[in-house]
């Protein structure tokens, strides 16, 4: 047996180990990549449909359309996928695959903003993707508006907010409060504020543009406010044109 205490042995061992493990992981990652990408694609479709109320919710918990049916349901309910760039609106059937984070980092003129028009029971839904920052990491989601800019549903998700506090933005009791709130105040863009101390924990006033914040999650809540306000604003002029 070689002397395992020698420095040269230690270094050679470390190098060989890194090469072997690196190769193994690279092989695993690249062979599973197609399946993982497919799962992420289905998830986006589920999220978009969830925001417009196409889901299998039961009391208290979030339930998406099953992955096996989501593709069919997506093409059934989403009648148009649009991309807004430089004031031009074009149709693009793969708009839902656009990475909003990357687009928001670009210059205004190069930005491609996806917008989805859904139809359910004769009613139109304009579904806007959201992306912003929470306390620890990214938060994102979708908000569905009707033609009067009234929120019909939202879906939020996060990468690493605090479990039990900020992570609860993806719980029903938070997301459901947004339904019915108005984005516009008259003709003025107002957005929606996640507010503390608005004396309305049951969210009975729907027209004040405020929803009750999560206790202990101030910064995540502010992140949600900022995310909705900055992103939805970009879309308002186009929704006006689309309504006709």
């Amino acid at each position: 047996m070689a002397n395992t205490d020698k420095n040269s042995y230690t270094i050679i061992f470390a190098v060989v180990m890194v090469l072997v493990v690196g190769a193994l992981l690279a092989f695993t990652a690249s062979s599973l990549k197609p399946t993982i990408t497919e799962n992420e694609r289905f998830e986006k479709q589920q999220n978009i449909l969830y925001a417009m109320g196409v889901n299998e919710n039961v009391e208290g918990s979030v339930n998406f359309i099953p992955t096996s049916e989501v593709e069919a349901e997506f093409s059934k309910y989403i009648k148009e996928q649009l991309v807004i760039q430089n004031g031009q609106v074009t149709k693009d059937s793969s708009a839902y695959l656009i990475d909003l984070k990357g687009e928001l980092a670009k210059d205004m003129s190069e930005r491609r903003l996806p917008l989805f028009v859904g139809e359910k029971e004769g009613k139109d839904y304009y579904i806007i993707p959201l992306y912003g920052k929470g306390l620890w990491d990214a938060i994102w989601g979708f908000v569905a508006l009707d033609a009067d800019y009234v929120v019909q549903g939202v879906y939020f998700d996060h990468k690493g907010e605090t479990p039990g506090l900020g992570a609860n933005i993806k719980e029903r009791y938070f997301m459901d409060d947004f339904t019915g709130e108005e984005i516009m105040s008259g003709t003025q863009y107002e957005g929606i504020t996640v507010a503390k101390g608005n004396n309305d924990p049951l969210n009975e006033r729907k027209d004040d543009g405020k929803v009750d914040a999560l206790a202990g999650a101030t910064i995540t809540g502010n992140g949600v406010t900022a995310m909705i306000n900055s992103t939805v604003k970009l879309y308002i002029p186009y929704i006006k044109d689309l309504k006709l």
Partner: protein
Amino acid sequence: MALLSKKDTGLLLDPLADNNPITIQVLGICSALAITAQLKASIVMALSVVFVLAVGNVVISLMRNIIPSKIRIIVQLVVVAALVIIVDQVLKAFAYELSKTLSVFVGLIITNCIIMGRFEAFALGNGPYRSFLDGIGNAAGYGLILIIVGFFRELLGSGTLLGFKVLGDPIAKTGLYAIGYENNGFMLLSPMALIVVGIIIWIQRSRNSALIEEN
């Protein structure tokens, strides 16, 4: 017990009860608190740890004579990290929703003290077969507690087991809910996991007083 010698049986079964990693050695508590709000997540976490610990123990045991002692902790970390990444990728590919529920906790298997503890305490000094049994045994002991805690938290907190409404429907007021039973939302919060673990430790020690430490 023709298949396993007495010592081997001990390796496999001791960690399930009298040498349980969670209730006796008090290792791996963090993940026991974090992911046990649902039975399903508990089971998957338990299976992931069984896989990582069993395979990791065998790998470390096979390499025990060639690992340079100066960097042995780093080698152990690399082995756990590689196995955990593989588990994570496989979950993402074949159980995507579950991988979202477990999110960071799969990555946190790396920091689960039980794993490094078994590598250091057992696999470095024993052959691969025994190390394999030791890995299965300890991970199963960990998983058993996880599943017990998950069972009670999901049952009492949400009134469901593996997502099935076993106590009736809380909205339609059927089953137990018809006579005024309510779910205890407190069970879904992490502190209640600690209390359930505490109760398990209490029961275990009152049944077997040899486990109680002398002060």
